[in-house]
């Protein structure tokens, strides 16, 4: 004798066991199972079958050696490591292919830095600072104000220093002039080559 309710719920029993029904459908099946022992027994059979199958699969999985599983998989997906030169070549070619602008700009900047740094370094190491290329101080011109009653006395020492004294010259009427130039040599202080000044200058 056919049971219409069982006929209706029979297709829903397996999804019920698998948890695939909506809450409303599940509630309806629960009520049906309380009133129909045949369906309840079938659900029990389904659950028992699931348990047996799960145990069987677990047993099979335990028999497999998983130790080298990761290594085997990675060995298949990771390509063989290239030699260093090949890797560098590949990296450079990719950089020039995909980042040509920044790479060219970087190389130009590096070349400019080297071109500037080398002369600067050469000039700083072991050489005189800017402007101090001479071996001794040389007084080129010396003069005093035209109305001044003093005159300059220059002497350059053997060690390379230079000294300018300003001494009284009551008879002086015009200023000094370029060292070694002009005709009024009495107004121009002599420049002795040694440390010894001429006594008449003082």
């Amino acid at each position, binding site marked *: 004798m056919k049971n219409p309710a069982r006929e209706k719920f029979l297709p829903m029993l397996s999804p019920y066991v698998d948890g695939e029904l909506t809450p409303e459908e599940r509630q309806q099946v629960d009520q049906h199972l309380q009133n129909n022992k045949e369906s309840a027994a079938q659900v029990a059979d389904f659950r028992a079958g699931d348990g047996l199958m799960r145990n069987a699969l677990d047993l099979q999985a335990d028999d497999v050696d998983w130790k080298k599983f990761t290594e085997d998989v990675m060995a298949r997906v990771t390509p063989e490591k290239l030699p260093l030169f090949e890797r560098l070549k590949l990296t450079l070619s990719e950089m020039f292919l995909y980042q040509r*602008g*920044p790479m060219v*700009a*970087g190389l*130009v*900047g590096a070349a*400019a*830095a080297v071109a*500037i740094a080398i002369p*600067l370094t050469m000039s700083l190491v072991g050489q*005189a*600072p*800017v*402007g*101090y*290329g*001479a*071996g*001794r*101080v*040389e*007084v*080129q*011109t*010396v*003069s*005093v*104000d035209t109305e*001044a009653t*003093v005159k*300059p006395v220059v*002497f350059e*020492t053997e*060690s*390379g*220093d*230079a*000294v*300018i*004294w*300003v001494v009284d010259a009551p008879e002086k009427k015009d*200023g000094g002039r370029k060292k070694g130039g002009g005709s009024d040599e009495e107004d121009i202080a002599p420049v002795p080559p040694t*440390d*010894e*000044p001429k006594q008449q200058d*003082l």
Partner: protein
Amino acid sequence: MTTLLRRTVLFAVTALASVAFADGAVAVQADVVFASTAKGTVDPSLEKMQQTLGAKVKYLTLEKRSSQKLTVDATPVTVALPNGKSASVSLEHLKGGVATLRVKLPPADATYSLAKDKAFYLQGGAHEGGDLWLVLSQPK
């Protein structure tokens, strides 16, 4: 223009500007020294000056009254002296690695060329019973 390229250009301009500045200015150590024949103390750093000037005057007192490092270019730099005078120092030219400076310390007006580790002494007038000297040399 990428950021890297902009930075590269900026770096190059800055570096070239510093090189250009180096060619147009020189560093000078400017010391103002009080010297007297009266017995006193001689600054140890001025013993060489005492020896240099000793050929003419035996200074027994040498004291630094001011000391400053100047960056000298064509624009005159002023150095004040304690006797009210002031010196102006400017760069006349820089040729072949040798700079020529013009020093005006009234009433004197002189031009001279710099030399490595050498000094230029210019008498700056009387002060407190002694003399003031302007000493220009290579900065240490």
